[in-house]
């Protein structure tokens, strides 16, 4: 393949996927990562890319309800499936209980890794898992360089305890 093939799109394909409850259809290169597809083809920039080698967890999204690293999947792999990003776990107004707990406990500083953490924890909670018991496991898949994790753990505990009112 030459550079002309790349830019003229001989390897383009169509991906049809439900993203955050909406049917989305876009033409993209076969080699496009799911993270780039969400960010650049669908404009969902809440999903962040920290390492592109599956180590940092910043790009974590839910695919058919399971937390995955979007930089380790191709967009074509989610064709026909369902993807939930941070935008999909955010209410129209205000914050979700998990987001509010993160805010209350100062569970974020630069906020770059935060969407991935939210997706991991929210995904586990939606799957009916005991998030409190799995805390180390869930957070173990995310690098946060700012917080030292202490307040992230505090936020998840507050969320598990039922939020600000129940927790205090």
């Amino acid at each position, binding site marked *: 393949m030459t*550079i002309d093939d790349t830019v003229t799109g001989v390897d383009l394909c169509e991906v049809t996927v439900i993203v955050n409850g909406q049917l989305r259809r876009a033409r993209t290169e076969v080699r496009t990562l799911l993270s780039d597809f969400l960010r650049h083809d669908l404009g969902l920039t809440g999903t962040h890319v920290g390492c592109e080698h599956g180590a940092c967890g910043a790009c974590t999204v839910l695919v058919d309800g399971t937390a995955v690293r979007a930089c380790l999947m191709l967009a074509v792999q989610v064709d026909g499936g369902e993807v939930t990003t941070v935008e999909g776990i955010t209410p129209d107004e205000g914050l979700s209980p998990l987001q509010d707990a993160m805010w209350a406990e*100062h569970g974020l500083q630069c906020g770059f890794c935060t969407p991935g953490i939210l997706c991991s924890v929210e995904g586990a909670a939606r799957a009916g898992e005991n998030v409190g018991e799995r805390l180390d496991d869930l957070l173990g898949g995310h690098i946060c360089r700012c917080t030292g994790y202490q307040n992230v*753990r505090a936020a998840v505990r507050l969320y598990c305890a039922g939020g600000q009112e129940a927790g205090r």
Partner: protein
Amino acid sequence: MTVAPERPASLVGARVRRVNDPRLLRGEGRYVDDVHVAGMVHATIVRSPIAHGVLRTFDASACGALLALGPDEIAAATRPLQCVWLAEGQRQTEVLLGDRRVRYVGQPVGVVVALSRAAAEDAAELIELDYDELPTVADQEQALRDGAPLLQPEWGTNVAADFRVGDDAETVEAAMARAARVVERRLVIPRIVPSPMETRGVVASWDANLRELTVWSSTQTPHHVRDHLATSLRLSADQVRVIAPDLGGGFGSKEHLYPDEVMVSLASMRLGRPVKWIEDRVEHFTATMHARDAVHYARLGMDEDGRFVAIASDVIGNLGAHPSNVGTGPFRISGSMLPGPYRFSSAGVRVRGVLTNTTPTGAYRGFGMQEAAWVRERLVDEAARELGVDPVELRLMNMVREDELPHTTPTLQDYDSGDYVEGLSMLRDMVSKREVPSDANPRIRRGVGYGSQVEFTGLGPSPVQKIVGFHLGGFETGVVRVDPDGSVVVSSGVMGMGQGIETTLAQIAADKLGVPLEKVRVTLGDTKVAPYSASGSIASRSMTVGGGAVTRASIALSDKMRRIAAHQMEADAGDVELVDGVFRVKGVPSTGVAFGDVAASTWLGWDLPPGEEAGLEVKDMHEPANISYSYSSHAAAVAVDLDTGKVHIEGYWVTHDSGTVINPMIVDGQVMGGVAQGIGIALYEKMTYGEAAQPTTTSFLDYLVPLSGDVPDLVIGHTEHPAPHIPGGMKGAGEGGTIPAPATVANAVAAAVPEIAGKVLETPLSPGRMWELLHEAGLHDRL
């Protein structure tokens, strides 16, 4: 009592939620890779795959890109980047762009632009490159040897600068000669990669019509980037606008303009189109400045009673392939801050900054002070071990007492305020309340270690920056405006990068003006609207220097509104108070003029006292009178598994003093994050080079940073000694978590396993390294 006071009625000292978090939590943050400009195309940087050589061929004729600029075109179109921190006699003071001589893996030699990032990377692969390779050297001590490969052959040496800090050699030697005991060690601080979660990136957009360049850049220093971009691209400063959007962390690595960012801007000017470049993580490990990498031959001299007499070090610092923006600055600050919180009659350091075939080293959280703490606090524990005394008692005995402050160190630091003894004593009390695990496993050893430090924050008086050769102004300007509807806008040249400065500046303005926090909007990061800030958000200075300016401006604006309200109520300004948004005459509740009405009439220019100017905007330029010296003491309790070498941190305690605390939640967050990075340095992080100076740790799978399970919940105690010379009394809070943490963890390891204490001289104390030390000490004989 100096334990941080509660101030229930005040927004200063209040644990309020951060103002910009909801946006970030909703996934609505706008980082540089989220910036999209119509017509935008994408760049990739061509980098040297070899560590030393000459690029003979750069042939992009068949690559098919929209644009490919090689070294010669880049060199012809740009001026070199000037280093801003220059040591006496520094042999190299600028960095050429498009140099065909390559000196490290990752050095940028070209830029390629295509319709997508992937296409640009494809095109870059099709560029024909041919190098003549030269011998390499990655280690600074090897680079000092006769016959070592020379990076700048005309110098005849790899030493770019050789200077002293503090007392001269004769004075130091005389003091050491008088000492009853001298503890001497070779201590090493390896190379660290700051690793913010967001890599670097820029979007450059040249408007050929207006002849203006707009650059969105993930930077801590927008004005610095603007000035250097303009110079390098032969534009005038007014032609360049730099906008720093949300930053995904910086930690020092984003404190200047990098050559590749100039190349991307040049590409936009050539194409007349917006060009985006986002660094990838593997690229980041060689293209963004590293930090630390210093070898210290250090000595601590004391009298027969254990009173410290002198401290000295011969520092051999690895500059990398060329002096970075800050060059030998971190090694110099290691010298300046080597005395720490202790009394010495003499202190002196020789610094040699050495070129090697590695990525240049520069700023990172702790800037020279983490290295100084590693050296000093390990020496103190080694001294305690040799003397057979308690290391905390030895520290307390030698600390500069509160009644001795202000105190000038032999390295000419004018410590301002505080009580170091109080901080360490309070820490020891906190540690004594811990529950000691009752683990009967004899193969697990436990120990507690301590570390103390004084920190140089709030850079800094501009005259001091001149003395140390740091070619940037150290002042900050704050502009506070009350608009006609009563809303408040604060502008400052400092930058938010996750540390929460948007919230704390708003707290100050709201507190001084007497308005709710929600009324205040803080605008940062756009050189077209922000007041000039040469130094930006570095050196724990944003709150100290920038916050000092906002404090004074807010007070002046509040006073003006009070005068106007008093005039409108025909009262004396001294009798006017602001209650629930209404100015009243004290004791006369029937009077009143609303805050918003005063704002509206002042912008109309109506009903003003004689001589009072219309409008409600105050600009304050704050040039601090001194550095602000924060301080902290840390303690760690560790468990060492003799069989695996794993060090587990079971408890961690901090006492911290950063002057007046604006938001304790945010300061705690800074301490927690700082300690986590210090634990990373202590146990995991090290950038390494292999054969032919090839980097061998270029992913998060090779270069390990701490995860949640590696960092315990800290117990933090605050004391609060305001900076006497700073409006508001704040001192820097960003780095005191990182600085003493590696030494503290190592002292705990040494306490847990005394058999290896004398060998704990270098980080990281990774399981592999620990296992070796334990094995050499005969602790595996049982197996």
